């Protein structure tokens, strides 16, 4: 009897959460991904010195999440009321949980930066003896808990990547978003963009040789991450394809229209195709060149941005 009556009118205007949210999702992904990768490399290789990779990753993770907050808060229609979230906590809301996680995560990334840029900061403070004294005192304390901070950073970095997925996967009106795969996809694509960003920053700003052991490691794990990412996207598509009437109707997003172009050219072409071509199809000479290194890194990041845009826009366009 329920087919007997229905309404199709809605009060929202298409995509309510637009590109600033997509950019925030990208930046949060890069931030978490870069830190996870760099710290896992450190744990795995049992490194004790401060590597360029970790330096780059700490800087990237702190600056991207801080910049991301600008987009997140800026997208509110009442940005100056942001503090209301902090006093009216709703533990059932993924957004509240996310804000809580962010308020732990940002200080963690900041402390990671302090560890890795201690020398630089001391040099800046050298003229102000008193400040330098305080700074050194704080660092003595902080250094004692460094192993714990590093482990916590990895845990919270994963939480940050995953929560951005849960944030939008709870939206039942949108079949593309309302899937269990989304948080996993966000973690993996975050890793992919984070790896690329950390690698590029390490090489450009901290003069890490593109063929150094650490960057070689990144280069090796880049491909399995990409493979998993493609697999998750394929799973998402198949689950929609074999789903109910509403889920099936959303597969059009992959097939025609502007979002299909964004998906096939942006996500598949630039994000996956370009790095693969640069690294494997054009011979060793091109693959080992500087230009290819940066181009392929930027293509990965751009691809993940396209993925976030596709999910945000196509997701909210094809509702039930």
């Amino acid at each position, binding site marked *: *009897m*329920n087919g*007997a*009556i*229905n*309404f*199709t*009118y*809605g*009060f*929202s205007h298409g995509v*309510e*959460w637009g590109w600033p949210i997509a950019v925030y999702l990208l930046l949060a992904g890069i931030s978490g991904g870069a830190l996870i990768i760099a710290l896992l490399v450190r744990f795995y290789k049992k490194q004790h010195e401060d590597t360029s990779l970790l330096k780059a990753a700490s800087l990237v993770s702190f600056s991207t999440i801080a910049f991301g907050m600008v987009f997140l808060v800026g*997208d*509110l*229609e*009442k*940005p100056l*009321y*942001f503090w*209301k*979230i902090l*006093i*009216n*906590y*709703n533990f*059932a*809301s*993924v*957004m*509240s949980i996310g*804000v809580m996680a962010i308020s732990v995560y940002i200080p963690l990334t900041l402390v990671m930066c302090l560890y890795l840029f201690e020398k630089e900061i001391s040099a800046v403070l050298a003229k102000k003896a008193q400040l330098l004294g305080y700074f050194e005192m704080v660092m003595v304390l902080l250094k004692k808990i460094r192993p714990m901070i590093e482990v916590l950073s990895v845990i919270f970095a994963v939480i940050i990547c995953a929560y951005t997925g849960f944030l*939008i996967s*709870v*939206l*039942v*009106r*949108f079949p593309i978003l309302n899937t269990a795969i989304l948080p996993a996809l966000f973690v993996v694509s975050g890793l992919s963009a984070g790896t690329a960003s950390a690698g590029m920053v390490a090489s450009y700003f901290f003069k890490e040789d593109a063929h150094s052991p650490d960057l070689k490691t990144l280069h090796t794990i880049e491909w399995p991450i990409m493979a998993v990412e493609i697999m998750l996207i394929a799973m998402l598509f198949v689950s929609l394809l074999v789903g109910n009437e509403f889920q099936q109707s959303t597969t059009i997003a992959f097939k025609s229209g502007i979002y299909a172009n964004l998906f096939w050219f942006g996500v598949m072409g630039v994000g996956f195709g370009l790095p693969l071509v640069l690294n494997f199809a054009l011979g060793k000479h091109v693959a080992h060149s500087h230009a290819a290194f940066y181009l392929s890194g930027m293509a990965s990041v751009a691809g993940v941005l396209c993925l976030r845009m596709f999910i945000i826009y196509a997701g*909210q366009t094809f*509702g*039930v």
Partner: protein
Amino acid sequence: MKNDGKRRAFLKVLGLGSVTLGTAGYSVAIEAGKTEKKPHYGMIFDQNKCVGCSDCEVACRKVNEVPQGQVRLYVENKTAPETPMEKKYVRVSCQQCEDAPCVAVCPSKACHRDAKTGIVTMNPDDCIACKYCIVACPYDVRFINHKTKAAENCNFCLNTNMAKGKEPACVESCKYKALVFGDLNDENSYINQILQVKDAVRMKPTFGTKPSLRYIPVVKVGV
């Protein structure tokens, strides 16, 4: 409620005494609720009676000061093109879900369930306009009010007509008695008497949010 007490103490410390005014009524209501059964307000839209005059829309906008170009309540024309003479209209508005996703996702508790009446309503001062509730609502019936810059939904005129002991503006204004408002927890209420004799459905029940609006659809019984 323990939490609420703590929060109030915390706010007092901050010197934000005025904010506590809102929560004071809250705990009183909870205590009163222990003795008498809490109400569960619902509404029936009878498609057989609605003529699509949109008087209800007009009344709602006026009573609740909804800005121009925006609505809490919309009457959609669902007349099938093949049968233009068989007019069909449907009320589009907040379905007052018992398991309301908008309340669950709101990070600032601006979108909340009124403790006394159980009605899903909003506190515009706490809303940060993040639009999370708007994308989370399965019925797409929330919007950011241009004037208050806060998310809004049909709350059965909780702060306007109901506060004055009147029925919601739409119900009052409908000349054709297509709308019935009442307490579903009261066995003797008119709304329950109607539900006992008529076939009513919930809109899109598969979302599992247990809406409190009931629709009596036009059904032809080929005589």
